[in-house]
C-alpha cells in the first residue's frame, strides 16, 4: 500500500514535469515572438535609419534563408545575423543543405531567399521563373587540400586541372563530396577540364557528404580533396591537411543571392527577401564581410565582387524591389 502511493506520487511528479516542460516550450515560443516584435517596434521608434519606416510596417519579420552547408559551416551568416536584425528588425531563419537541396527549397516555396554558389543551377532556377534575379555579390577561392608531404606533387601546379591530373596519375586517394553541391559541381568541372573520368576508380572516394564530413574523411585517409577555403580553415582537418593549391583562376567561387519570385509562391516574404539583399549589398555588410575571418586566419574568408559587378547587383536589387512593389 505504501509503495503504491509512492508510485502514484512519482507518476504525478513525472506528469507534472512533462506538463511544465510543455508549457515552458509554448511560452518560450510566444515569448520570443513577442520580444522580437517588441524589439522591432522599439527599433523603429528609436532608429532614424531609412529602414526604420519599413520596419514599422513589417508584417512578417521572419525571412527564411536557404543556404549551402559551406556558407553555414564558414560561420558567416551567424556572424552577420545580429547586425542585420538590429538594422532591419527582420529575423533570419537559416537552413543549410547541399546546393541541390538548398535550391530545391526555393522551388518548393520553403524559402524566401537563397544564398548559394552554383552558377549553372542558379541560372536554370531563374529561367524556370522561381527566382526574381541572380545577384552575385561575393566570392572566394576553392582550394585543393592534401597531406603536407604532398605525395602526388601538386604543389607547383598552375591550374586545378593540372593538379587533378597529377593526383589521378599518382593514384593517391581523392575524396569527393559526391552530393551534387556547388563544390562537387566545381570538382567535376575540373575533372572534365583535366580529361579524366574519376568515377569508379579505386582511389576516388565518393563520400556523399557535406564539406565538413568530407574534410574529416580526407584527413583520416590522408587524401586530397577540393574544399572552399572558409570551411577548411574552420575545420579541424587543417591540423593534418594543408592547402596545396589555391587562388588559381579556375577555382574562383562566386556566391549569389536570389529572392524567391512571388509570382510562383505568393506567400513568400518578398519584402523580407529584398530587405535581406539590400542590406547585404549595403556598406555595413560589405565592411563586415570584408573583415570576416581576418582576425582569426589573417585573411578574409570572402571577398566582395568589384565595383562594376556590385553596380549591376544594385540595379538588380532595384528591379527586385520593383517586382515586389508590383506585387
Amino acid at each position, binding site marked *: 500500500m505504501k509503495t503504491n502511493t509512492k508510485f502514484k506520487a512519482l507518476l504525478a511528479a513525472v506528469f507534472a514535469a512533462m506538463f511544465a516542460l510543455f508549457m515552458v516550450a509554448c511560452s518560450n515560443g510566444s515569448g520570443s515572438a513577442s520580444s522580437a516584435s517588441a524589439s522591432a517596434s522599439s527599433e523603429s521608434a528609436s532608429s532614424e535609419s531609412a529602414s526604420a519606416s519599413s520596419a514599422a510596417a513589417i508584417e512578417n519579420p521572419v525571412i527564411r534563408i536557404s543556404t549551402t552547408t559551406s556558407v553555414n559551416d564558414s560561420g558567416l551568416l551567424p556572424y552577420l545575423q545580429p547586425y542585420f536584425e538590429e538594422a532591419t528588425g527582420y529575423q533570419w531563419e537559416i537552413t543549410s543543405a547541399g546546393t541541390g537541396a538548398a535550391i530545391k527549397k526555393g522551388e518548393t516555396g520553403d524559402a524566401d531567399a537563397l544564398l548559394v554558389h552554383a552558377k549553372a543551377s542558379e541560372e536554370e532556377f531563374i529561367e524556370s521563373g522561381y527566382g526574381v534575379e541572380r545577384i552575385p555579390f561575393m566570392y572566394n577561392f576553392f582550394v585543393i587540400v592534401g597531406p603536407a608531404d604532398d605525395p602526388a606533387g601538386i604543389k607547383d601546379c598552375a591550374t586545378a586541372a593540372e593538379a587533378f591530373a597529377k593526383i589521378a596519375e599518382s593514384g593517391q586517394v581523392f575524396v569527393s563530396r559526391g552530393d551534387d553541391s556547388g563544390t562537387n559541381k566545381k570538382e567535376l568541372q575540373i575533372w572534365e577540364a583535366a580529361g579524366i573520368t574519376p568515377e569508379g576508380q579505386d582511389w576516388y572516394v*565518393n563520400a*556523399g557528404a557535406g564539406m565538413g564530413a568530407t574534410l574529416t*574523411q580526407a584527413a583520416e585517409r590522408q587524401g586530397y580533396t577540393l574544399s572552399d577555403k572558409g570551411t577548411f580553415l574552420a575545420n579541424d582537418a587543417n591540423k593534418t591537411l594543408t592547402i596545396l593549391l589555391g587562388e588559381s583562376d579556375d577555382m574562383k567561387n562566386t556566391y549569389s543571392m536570389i529572392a524567391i519570385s512571388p509570382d510562383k509562391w505568393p506567400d513568400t516574404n518578398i519584402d523580407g527577401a529584398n530587405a535581406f539583399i539590400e542590406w547585404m549589398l549595403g556598406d555595413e555588410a560589405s565592411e563586415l564581410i570584408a573583415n570576416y575571418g581576418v582576425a582569426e586566419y589573417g585573411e578574409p574568408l570572402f571577398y566582395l565582387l568589384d565595383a562594376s559587378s556590385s553596380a549591376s547587383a544594385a540595379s538588380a536589387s532595384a528591379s527586385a524591389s520593383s517586382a515586389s512593389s508590383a506585387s
Partner: protein
Amino acid sequence: MDELVQAFTLMFTPGSELSQIILLTLQMAAFSTVISTAIGVPLGVLVGLYRFPGKRLVMRILNTLMGLPPVLAGLVVFFILSRSGPLGTLRLLYTLPAMVTAQVVLITPIVCGLSATAISGVAPLVHETAHGMGLSRRRELACLLYECRSQLLSIVFVAFGRSIGEVGAVMLVGGNVQYKTRVMTTAIMLETNMGHFEYAVALGIALLVVSFVINSIALSLQERTSAPEAEGARSHTRGGRLGGERR
C-alpha cells in the same frame, strides 16, 4: 512521379548501384544482428536469470544504454578507429566492419536488456517448476529458452530493424562512401541533401519493403518454431533433492 518509377526500375536492375546499396545494407544489418545477438542474448539471460549484487545497477545501465543516441555510439567508435585513436592502425574507419562495430555497440544493450526482461519474467516460475521436478540446470535453461523463444526471436528482429534503419552512427563511421559504405539510410540522407526528394522517397519505400519482407519471414518463423527434441541431461535427476540442509 517519373523519378519514382525510374528509381524502382533501377532497384530491380541487377548490378545497379541501388541493388548494390540494398545488398550492402542487408549485409551490414545481418552481421550486426548476428554479432549483437551472440553477445546480447547470453548476457541478457545471465542478467535475467541470476541474482547478484549490483543487479539493479546493471539493469539501470542497460536501460540507459538501450536509449543510447546512435550518433554517440558512432562518435565513440569513430574516436577509437580514427587515425589518432587507439585502433587507428587497423585502418578500419570508413569500412563495413566499422559500421558493424558501431551498430553492435548500439544494438547489443538493446538485445541484452530485452532478453533480460523476457527471461526474468518467467525464470522464477520455470525455476520452481524445474527444481520441483528435479531437472538439471542445463535442462532447465533449455526449457526457459524454449519458453522465451518467440520473444527472443522478435528481439532478434528488433535488432535487425534497428540496424537496417539506423543512420547517425553508420554515417559517422561508414562515411557514406559510394560502392563501399553507402547504405539505404545514408543514401536517403544524401538524396535528400541533393534535393532528389522523389528518389529519396523511393529509397525509403524500398527500405520499408525490405523491412516488411524480413518481418514476414520472422513471423512465419515464429509460427513454425516447434518443440526442440528432448535430450536428457544425465545427471542427478531421479527426483529433486531435499532442502533445508544443515549449514
